């Protein structure tokens, strides 16, 4: 397959591994920001192939993992209501709320539908005017524009039976927060390629400079990741800390202006709670006042749901890179994909799920 096979090519990967080996002189710790990158690393066993001098830690870039519990509980409260058709991306369905999850509600008869594009839920709304159709809009800057477009179109169509439960998060603020954390171990980042496809990478330039930390915008295939690591190690070894773009076939500095314009129009930047990480200043997006009529939190009066996150799950440490999934005392014991303690074990992009799926854990 063109543009995929080249980036899974064994010889190219071997050359990059050799190149990394030839320039590395000391241990370095690099965080791959995005969960898709984590899964590729574990799936292809890149960490097994890399020099022992490189520690990869798995960042918070999994939208399912960082969606706070109170938002899941709001989703459950809305989805339970009789007149509601609740639409969601597939991987949100298994995430546990305080007491149950969307899959269980579905088993109990709630009308919960998996959609591939938020725009599909608009069609469902148009075809079911006697129902309230709600889309569960979670995700990073990558998915936010599609939800922005959906809300924008709902307004244009004056579609009154449609609304969005939105919980979008922004990557640069959380990277800033991780670097400011007193326990930070990250010396270099592999930036999230798909987020930068939309946003470009200008936002990362001040971050790299301020924290003297190289950021290499990186793709998702094995060759992408190895080249990203090579660029990052090269910078670290030579004392540079720049924003570098490995994913040039998709990302440019400006990103996608049309998508950014839409985001600006539909959403406002806000402080946002990240599951396991706490409140990140300017770490999220909320629907702008002009779109209040399509805000499900207000329509269904669930704004008051505030859930404490009790218990032992250490996904916060996982998301900060302070703990490897397989060194967590609960991993594969009390915490499994069937009975997850936290979202990092549930999501298809969660680090714990990746380790559980691709590594021996008995």
């Amino acid at each position, binding site marked *: 397959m063109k543009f995929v096979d080249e980036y899974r090519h064994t010889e190219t990967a071997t050359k990059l591994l050799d190149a990394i080996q030839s320039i590395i002189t000391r241990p370095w710790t690099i965080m791959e920001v995005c969960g898709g990158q984590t899964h590729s690393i574990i799936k292809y066993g890149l960490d097994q192939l890399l020099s022992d001098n490189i520690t990869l830690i798995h960042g918070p870039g999994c939208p399912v993992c960082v969606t706070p519990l109170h938002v899941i509980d709001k989703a459950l409260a809305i989805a339970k209501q009789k007149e509601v058709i609740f639409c969601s991306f597939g991987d949100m369905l298994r995430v*546990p709320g305080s007491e*149950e999850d969307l899959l269980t509600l579905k088993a109990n008869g709630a009308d919960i539908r998996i959609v591939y594009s938020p725009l599909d839920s608009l069609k469902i709304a148009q075809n079911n005017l006697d129902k309230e159709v709600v889309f569960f809009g979670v995700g990073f800057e990558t998915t936010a524009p599609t939800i922005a477009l959906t809300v924008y179109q709902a307004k244009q169509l004056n579609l009154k039976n449609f609304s969005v439960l939105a919980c979008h998060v922004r990557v640069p603020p959380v990277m800033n927060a991780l670097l400011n954390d007193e326990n930070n171990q990250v010396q270099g980042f592999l930036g999230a390629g798909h987020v930068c496809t939309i946003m470009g990478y200008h936002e990362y330039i001040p971050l790299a400079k301020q924290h003297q930390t190289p950021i290499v915008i990186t793709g998702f295939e094995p060759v992408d990741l190895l080249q990203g690591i090579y660029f990052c190690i090269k910078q670290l070894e030579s004392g540079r800390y720049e924003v570098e773009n490995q994913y040039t076939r998709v990302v440019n500095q400006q990103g996608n202006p049309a998508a950014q314009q839409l985001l600006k129009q539909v959403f406002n930047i806000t402080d946002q709670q990240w599951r396991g990480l706490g409140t990140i200043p300017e770490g999220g997006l909320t629907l702008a006042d002009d779109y209040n009529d399509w805000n499900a939190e207000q329509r269904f009066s669930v704004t008051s749901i505030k859930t404490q996150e009790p218990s032992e799950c250490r996904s*916060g440490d996982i998301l900060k890179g302070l703990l490897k999934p397989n060194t967590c005392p609960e991993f594969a014991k009390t915490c499994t994909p069937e009975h997850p303690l*936290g979202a990092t074990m549930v999501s298809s992009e969660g680090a714990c799920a990746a380790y559980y799926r691709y590594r021996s854990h008995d």
Partner: protein
Amino acid sequence: MTKMTLNCPLPYQPKQIVMAHGGGGRMMQQLIDTIIQPIFDNDILNQKHDSAVININQSKLALTTDSYVINPLFFSGGNIGKLAICGTLNDLAMSGAKPLYITCSLIIEEGFLITNLQRILESMQEIAQQAGVKIVTGDTKVVEKGKGDGLYINTAGVGIIADNIEVNPNKIQVGDHIIINSDIARHGMTIMLEREGIEFENDLKSDCADLSNLVQILINQDIDLHCLRDLTRGGLASGLIELATHSQLQFEINDSILPIQESVKSGCDILGFDPLYIANEGCFVLFVSALESEKALNYLQQHPLGQQACVIGEVTAVNDKGIVNLKTALGSHRVLDLLSGEQLPRIC
């Protein structure tokens, strides 16, 4: 940054059946092992094979049953009727049996078009005739509108196993070659794309086919088939994991050899699915000794359903946990594990 909290919720354990209990993964396995199997417990059920093998008056019979609840009922490459007959024939074939008779129960939803029913039944008869089996008895029920999904079909099949033939997971040995007859994941991706109305150009067709004739050819050539497994729900990975667990052996599979059609690969990449876990309906793995591997390949490749046959791996060691290792194209290894339930499309 504010002080980071490290909290997550306690797990919620389902008290009722959820869709994942039928997904061919770990939850289904647990349902069978902890609820269904202990109640019906007996030596024949415990064989855990695609068919039950029963001895009656010196004859060795294979008996199997399966229900078909597929949506859509008509899909590229087949329909629910063809699927039901092929599925039952294949389950019998996987125990080395020559299929003889099939039953057919229909649960039809009020309002279902009789012309569609006819088309489906004709497909069933066509496949049965080609395979030389008869559909000999059945049952017809009609349920109220909204209480069925158009049509559900249950079939059962019986076949006979020749005296000297024994095909089961207990016969798998260290050193065995693992052969696959065809490319993987075509049926699951075809259904998924049609069901969800995902609009991208593709040339996908389900691999739904009767494998019993191909298996009989191998048996007639005196190839000692150690074990056969058709790779339906849960795909190649789940099939191999079940066999490794049951036989307490370790398998190594070579990822770069696995035959996968380009459009299946693309579809999987777009949706974030792993083709190793996607259903097939005309695809099986075969365990034979290294000595007989080439002979088996030779006969497989001469058959229309085995043209892509190849050795995808081997049985490498005894391992009481039963492990399937996948060697990636880059030379690293990963362990294949049962998925919880069905794969869900990812966010981005």
